[in-house]
């Protein structure tokens, strides 16, 4: 009796702790040192369903989504609103549902994943999951987006 009770409570605790950790790690960003240039045209990036090739004057946000991603539409809406509100920022979305080569190249294993590019299109920061907005705003301000 005792062993199975302990195992069941353990599983429950594992779920709770897992959920808390997941929530904590979700959307946390990290700097990228490779400074790879992201070619929006090659990625077939879209803004409002239209192809986009130009970077923002100060920064560009690139969101990678899949059709199966439940949180992608909400993040897309939030980031599109940021683009509208802030000067010098552009937003682009890339659907990688059938493009595993792109996912493998950038080592993307969850969606949404959001890349922050500088004015010349260098990848400088990336966030896996729903981005933490205060962190993102801080990074945008460093690039002069206000």
């Amino acid at each position, binding site marked *: *009796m005792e*062993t*199975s*009770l302990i*195992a*069941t409570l353990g*599983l*429950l605790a*594992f*779920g709770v702790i*897992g*959920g808390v950790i*997941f*929530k904590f790690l*979700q959307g946390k960003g990290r700097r990228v040192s490779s400074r790879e240039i992201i070619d929006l045209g090659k990625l077939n990036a879209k803004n409002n369903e239209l192809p986009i090739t130009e970077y923002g004057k100060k920064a560009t946000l690139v969101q990678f989504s*899949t*059709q*199966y*991603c*439940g*949180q992608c*539409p*909400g993040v897309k809406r939030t980031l599109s609103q940021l683009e509208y509100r802030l000067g010098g920022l552009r937003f682009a979305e890339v*659907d*990688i549902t059938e493009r*595993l080569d792109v*996912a*493998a190249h950038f080592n*993307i*294993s*969850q*969606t949404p994943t959001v890349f922050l590019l500088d004015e010349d299109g260098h990848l400088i920061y990336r966030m896996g*999951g729903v981005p933490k907005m205060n962190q993102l705003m801080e990074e945008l301000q460093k690039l002069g987006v206000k």
Partner: protein
Amino acid sequence: MTEVKRIDPRGPRFGAGITSALSLASFAMSLQFGFVAGHPLMVALFVLFAWSVLFPKTHPYQFIFQKLVRPRLQEPTELEDPRPPQFAQKVGFAFAILGTIGGLFLSILIPVAAAFIFIAAFLNAFFGFCLGCQMYLGLRRFGIIR
């Protein structure tokens, strides 16, 4: 991308709540009383997942949510694409097959499958994370799903 009818996101989360209770019960019962007690609950999960994958519109969770739960809730603030939760149901179904069929030959597979189903359903119901949808890309990239 074709237009799909969007759904109330609380529907799948309500279903995940029931699934997490059933899977935790299957886990506890199989450990405590063995195959005879754990397997019927795993079969119930198998049937519910199969139903949800094959005929999602007539699923009992959906019926209970629409008739009894949703009328007591406020209008949803946003609707979501039904494909991510449907994909998650397929992941759950795969584990239920493992527990139901595999459990016939190796009874330890019942609590193992129940534990995986519980964690995924619990995270979805109580933390709003759709594990399967979020890891969709990772699973495909590593060849676990096609």
